[in-house]
């Protein structure tokens, strides 16, 4: 187990480094930072000054190593736009993104797992096909569109929920539902496939031969064995929700990490982009590791391997 964790940690560092190098190079290729910082009315002289002050005249490798050395000490630099430390900018927005992502995932799991189980138990019947159809529609529906429809119907027409901002907890309901919607089809299909396999297995026949009740057979004996791929994918989905909810944060005017990322990319706020990328890489790696460990809890065979 220790060896397993060490190997994973080493791999995680390598993944982080790769992500950083790639994102560093890509942001630098996307345009001249000094020009965009200086603004439209700047003279060539201003631009040259800015380039020198920000150290943008140095070779790329030197710039990267300089940034990485600071980042390793916890100094992620300052935003060109906000003139504030990047770490603080992310920390301010993290609670919103975290609340949104976790509630989105919770809703997705609460809907997807029961539907997947139901579908598997009634494989090939009208119930199964009905659930599959709903999942298909859900997958095909763009989340910005669903968000707008919800804003119009639930927010404006019925006036049940606030349409933007998170001044109260109700503000999270609609964006979390929209976020969950995009994750439900995949999670449901995985649950269904895993449950169909599990329910057809010999140990389920044994459980039935013991006279166990259906609920116990399904929820205890089958679900635990079907849960592993669901856990892995749910972890990735959560990573996506924490970093990739840009569209939803924009639609519902939530100023979370996703919104920050979008803003910094569009305005060439290079230190923020770089820091957000680092943050997301760490989040993904952390979640994948957490999923592996949860799977080891679920399946004793992984613990001894």
């Amino acid at each position, binding site marked *: 187990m220790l060896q397993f964790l060490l190997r994973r940690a080493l791999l995680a560092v390598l993944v982080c480094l790769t992500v950083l190098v790639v994102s560093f190079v890509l942001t630098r290729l996307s345009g001249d930072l000094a020009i965009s910082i200086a603004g439209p009315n700047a003279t060539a002289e201003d631009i040259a000054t800015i380039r020198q002050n920000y150290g943008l005249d140095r070779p790329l490798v030197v710039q990267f190593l300089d940034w990485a050395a600071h980042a390793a000490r916890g100094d992620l630099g300052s935003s060109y736009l906000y003139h504030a430390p990047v770490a603080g900018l992310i920390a301010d927005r993290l609670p919103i993104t975290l609340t949104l992502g976790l509630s989105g995932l919770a809703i997705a799991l609460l809907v997807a797992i029961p539907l997947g189980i139901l579908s598997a138990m009634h494989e090939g019947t009208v119930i199964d096909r009905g659930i599959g159809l709903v999942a298909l529609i859900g997958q095909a529906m763009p989340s910005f569109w669903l968000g707008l429809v919800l804003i119009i119907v639930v927010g404006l027409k019925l006036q049940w929920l606030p349409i933007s901002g998170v001044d109260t907890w109700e503000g999270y309901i609609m964006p979390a539902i929209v976020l969950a919607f995009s994750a439900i089809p995949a999670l449901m299909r995985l649950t269904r496939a895993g449950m169909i396999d599990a329910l057809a*297995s*010999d*140990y389920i*026949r*044994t*459980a*039935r*031969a*013991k*006279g*166990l*009740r259906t609920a*116990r057979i399904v929820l205890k*004996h089958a679900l*635990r*064995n079907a849960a592993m791929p669901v856990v892995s994918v749910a972890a990735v989905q959560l990573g996506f929700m924490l970093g990739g909810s840009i569209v939803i944060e924009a639609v519902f005017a939530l100023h979370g990490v996703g919104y920050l990322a979008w803003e910094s990319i569009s305005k060439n706020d290079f230190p923020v982009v770089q820091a957000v990328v680092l943050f997301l890489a760490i989040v993904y790696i952390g979640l994948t590791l957490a999923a592996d460990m949860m799977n080891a809890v*679920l*399946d*004793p*065979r992984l613990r*001894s391997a």
Partner: protein
Amino acid sequence: MNAVLEVANLRVAFANGTQAVRGVSLKVERGETHCLVGESGCGKSVSSLAVMNLLARGATRSADVLRFHDTDLMKLSERHMAALRGDKLAMIFQEPMTSLNPAYTIGSQMAEALTRHRRVSRAKALDRAAELLGRVGITAPGMRLAQYPHQLSGGLRQRVMIAMALMCDPELLIADEPTTALDVTVQAQILRLLQSLQRELGLALLLITHDLGIVARMAQRVSVMYAGEVVESASAEALFAQPTHPYTRGLLACIPIPGASRRDEPLGSIPGVVPRIGPDFQGCGFRDRCAHAAPICAQVAPLQHAAPGHDYLCRLPPDWSAAEAA
């Protein structure tokens, strides 16, 4: 005394129209081992699953009689049947490697077999599990209870399955090829174990096998199945001394006998394969492979008595000889 299990005219059909079991009748008495023997696909496993009401979805069963003591199993709801399963009626399966849930400890899986049917604490159930593991010859039962299936060998897992089946003191144990997946030495141990348990507990044992060696060793009564039908049923001695159905004789000719079989003589074999029995199938299922088939075999074969308690399903007289029939 009433039989523990009585089955008459049991039929099972699959959703695709295959008639997997076509009128099986048998009885298992208390303390008796009844062997259901036949080749793969003859319907012996399906018959046992039908008795337990464990058939896969899409399979339908019917029977004139399906009785456990005085309980009509055909009339029981699934809820009441589940209450009986694992309690008075237990079953073990052919695949010890996959029949235990990989995610739970041996102790947890054994204990729930008891707590499902009796009002006992989990601790008491674990005590009972440890006691039974000891009884099936597993050393250090306490340690085994905390282990997971993947930490046990196939032979140990099958012992665990047997011990688990005994948790509630069943009266009938159905064992579906319990030793097929195991190597020969372990096979012998498991069979010895089943025999001694049966003697001690007075179990009625319905043993399903394709291995006539096991039949000779274990059975008091034998039912030979072919293509969904019991083609011959007799006491074990009578069956081996005077096999009557051509299929039974064919089966016995396939077994080498040390000393009697000659090296230069080919071992017997039955040409062809088991036919698929569709909904419109009529007549003797063996006729395409039978050396003594006649036109009349396309009609339903008569049930004849070779001796009291010795029945067979064939047109031939009980004392037919290969020379005359040909």
